[in-house]
């Protein structure tokens, strides 16, 4: 079974308060869903964390400007909202987007692999997340993006072209990759100008049991038996 987009939620806050950010759980999230939270914080030297729960984390950003972090977990008795904090004292611009995906199965690490990129003063055509090579079927490829000016993309183009939303310059899009292989790039298509940006591709495994590459070792001699249990 493959992941499918369910719902999202968005929040942002300005410089005027150094308090933690509270992000509502995406509406309709149920146990077993994959929850993805994409976060923007200033400055770039800050370390971002999310609670409650245990999350897989990809930290990246634009050196000298802002920090991005994408968190992934399997939903299990999720709270009504998540608290997103950082370790830099004082007031900071921050934003967060949360998505929920149905169709997950199995347990274990959810992030197959990822790739990040950043640059300053480039137009939309060049604000790409790099191509990555996924290792199995049914990977949900997530495009996680932000820029310094806070401009929202209105559409994206390339591989992960399903833009789910944008808030305070933070944006997230996705596509289900049915087969393994090179993904190609994704970038904003409209709504942004020349920007200082950072972006990532993150491939999330749908089915842990069927997602890892496995090989069946057959005996070179003798017989292979199959047992059928009849109740």
């Amino acid at each position, binding site marked *: 079974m493959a992941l499918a987009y369910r*719902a999202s939620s*968005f929040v*942002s806050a300005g410089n005027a308060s150094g308090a933690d950010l509270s992000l509502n759980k995406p509406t309709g999230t149920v146990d077993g869903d994959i929850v993805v939270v994409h976060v923007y914080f200033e400055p770039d030297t800050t370390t971002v964390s999310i609670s409650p729960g245990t999350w897989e984390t990809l930290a990246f950003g634009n050196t000298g400007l802002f920090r991005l972090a994408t968190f992934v977990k399997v939903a299990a008795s999720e709270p009504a909202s998540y608290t997103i904090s950082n370790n830099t004292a004082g007031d900071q611009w921050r934003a967060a987007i949360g998505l929920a995906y149905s169709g997950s199965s199995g347990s274990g690490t959810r992030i197959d692999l990822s790739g990040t990129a950043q640059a300053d003063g480039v137009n939309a055509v060049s604000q790409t997340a790099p191509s990555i090579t996924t290792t199995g079927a049914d990977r949900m490829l997530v495009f996680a993006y932000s820029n310094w000016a806070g401009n929202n993309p209105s559409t994206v183009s390339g591989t992960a072209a399903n833009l789910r939303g944008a*808030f305070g310059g933070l944006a997230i899009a996705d596509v289900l990759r049915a087969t393994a292989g090179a993904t190609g790039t994704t970038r904003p298509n409209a709504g942004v100008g020349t920007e200082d940006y950072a972006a990532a591709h993150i491939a999330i495994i749908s089915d842990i049991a069927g997602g890892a590459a496995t090989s069946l070792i057959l005996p070179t001699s003798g017989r292979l038996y199959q047992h059928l249990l009849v109740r």
Partner: protein
Amino acid sequence: MAIVTREQGRIIEDSGVAILEYDYDDVSLLLRAIRVRNTTPLVVEVTAVKTTDPNAGRTVSRTYPANATTVQNIGTGAAARINITIDSRGRMDGVETAMRFVI
């Protein structure tokens, strides 16, 4: 003086898009309007938490109807009193805003 429209956020569904945007005076840098443009068949919920005084911590949550555009104009006097400012990048400061569909 010009009124600038800036998008705060957008949520996209197969059936359309809901956009939260605001207008501000590019000289005084004060808010002039809040607007929700919703082309989806879903109700949108927007929550605002004041992060500056006056009324820091005050929370206002409102739903916006499907397939409609809703505008709340803000008078210059009110804009000056509520202390929500616009920074040099055109971003709204003094309030935490959240947005999602109500399903």
